[in-house]
């Protein structure tokens, strides 16, 4: 009795295991579907608990999202950091040579610099204020209602005295702020060093019109362009050729900065480092790029 029961139990299990593993093994080859090998690699690196904690439907879905670039590598609560690290390794091949991208706010006017501001009633959002005329004189400058602040997941941008200001210590360059800015004054720019030069104005109007609305805006005088080849005046606005930009900033470039009558050419980046320090932050490539050229012609 005892032995038969034990034997039967073992036998039952054995038979069941046999049947299932045969069927599954066969199905695995018979129903094979070609997939991106990286998906399998990611799948292997994932715990396979299928708990759904990542917000995706099981590990397979998450693996696909990671490989497809639709998900961050650190979403798996089960695998934790080690899993994230190995996923980054699998996916990291492509990220290797990319430059770090960081946002630059192309406006330098604080509250007192803006002329012609009007009492504005309505939704206190940049996107909403942007469709109302005459909220402030400058139709290009930062509206200061902080759409970018609420878009940032890293608490890395704040409105300081009416001007969006990036905290480069916290910024990871995801580009959310640039995406949301209705006036497109935030651009995602390759940072060749911890601090780079930037023209902090987007106003393309003529100098005379600008002086009416802003005390600091670029008037397109061309002093910088005359001093250095790095700068060109386009649409009454000084622009920097970042392809040719060299972090070491030669004397002519520094001279251009000095020459600028409105001091719109400034270094942006981490505040406590030297001007030319090598970049050492996180490398996140934005999935899009904006330029000042896209700035809308809207009030």
């Amino acid at each position, binding site marked *: 009795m*005892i032995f038969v029961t*034990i034997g039967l139990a073992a036998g039952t299990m*054995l038979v069941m*295991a046999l049947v299932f593993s045969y069927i599954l093994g066969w199905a695995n080859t018979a129903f094979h579907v070609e997939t991106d090998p990286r998906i399998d690699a990611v799948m292997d690196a994932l715990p396979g608990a299928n708990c759904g904690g990542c917000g995706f439907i099981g590990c397979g879905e998450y693996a696909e999202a990671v490989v497809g670039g639709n998900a961050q590598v650190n979403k798996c609560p089960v695998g934790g950091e080690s899993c994230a690290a190995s996923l980054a390794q699998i996916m990291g091949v492509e990220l290797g040579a990319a430059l770090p991208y960081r946002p630059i706010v192309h406006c330098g006017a604080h509250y007192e610099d803006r002329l012609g501001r009007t009492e504005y009633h309505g939704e206190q959002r940049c996107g909403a204020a942007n469709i109302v005329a005459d909220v402030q004189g400058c139709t290009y400058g930062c509206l200061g209602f902080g759409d970018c602040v609420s878009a940032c997941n890293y608490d890395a941008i704040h409105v300081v005295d009416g001007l969006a200001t990036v905290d480069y210590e916290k910024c990871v360059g995801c580009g959310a702020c640039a995406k949301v800015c209705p006036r497109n004054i935030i651009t995602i720019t390759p940072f060749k060093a911890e601090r780079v030069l930037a023209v902090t104005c987007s106003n393309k109007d003529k100098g005379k019109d600008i002086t009416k609305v802003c005390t600091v805006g670029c008037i397109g005088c061309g002093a910088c362009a005359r001093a250095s080849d790095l700068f060109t005046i386009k649409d009454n606005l000084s622009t920097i050729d970042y392809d040719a930009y060299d972090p070491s900033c030669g004397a002519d470039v520094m001279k251009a900065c000095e020459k600028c009558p409105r001091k719109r050419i400034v270094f942006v980046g981490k505040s406590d480092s030297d001007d030319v320090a090598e970049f050492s932050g996180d490398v996140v490539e934005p999935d899009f790029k904006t330029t000042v050229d896209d700035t809308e012609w809207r009030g």
Partner: protein
Amino acid sequence: MTTTTQETPGSGKNRWTNFFIVQAWLVLLLASFFGAALAGIQLTLAPKIEANKLNETLEKVPELILGADAARASKDSGQQMEINRQYMTAGTKTYSVFKAEKDNQTAGWVVKASGQGYADKIELLVGVDETVNTITGLFVLDQKETPGLGNKIMEPDWRRQFVSKPTHLLLTAVKTKADGPGEISAITGATISSKAVCDIVNQSLNNLRQPLAKAASDKKKPSEKQQEKN
């Protein structure tokens, strides 16, 4: 684990049809090993579990038949009670019936009855005397009634109402004070649970009264007689 010394066969060699199974050798091995181990555990523990299950009911039998005080007294005095379990089919239902014998005399019967309560099934033990004329006790084995309301059917004070109620009357739960012979005063706010208990008792006793009385009237050991009949 002895299995760690084995090697994986099949890799790199010709692929036979049962390749998948070969791959799964560890699964197979573990499966059969675990199966066997569990069967062993089953054989060891099963009697104890069975006994537990039975004890849960059997322990209540003396109390249900003799009443709590008498049961304790007889327990203290070291008296014994022999309890037999039988299955009885009556009406459409089959009941577990426990026959308690004391000093080779039928002391009473305990019927395990169940029915729908307010929330879920209610399982009761109903004790009756040997002539099946009065109820000697009621115990709630299992219930999922609303805590604080329906689950008051478990309280001894309420259950005590059933003691010495005649079995030939249908018990009814009344909201007022119970004064009629077949009346049980319902738990305030849990009339449904109270009713359910009454219904279960009514139905089971109605079904079993006759057969039990018949069995009891046989002075011989009923179990043997039944078996002979079969």
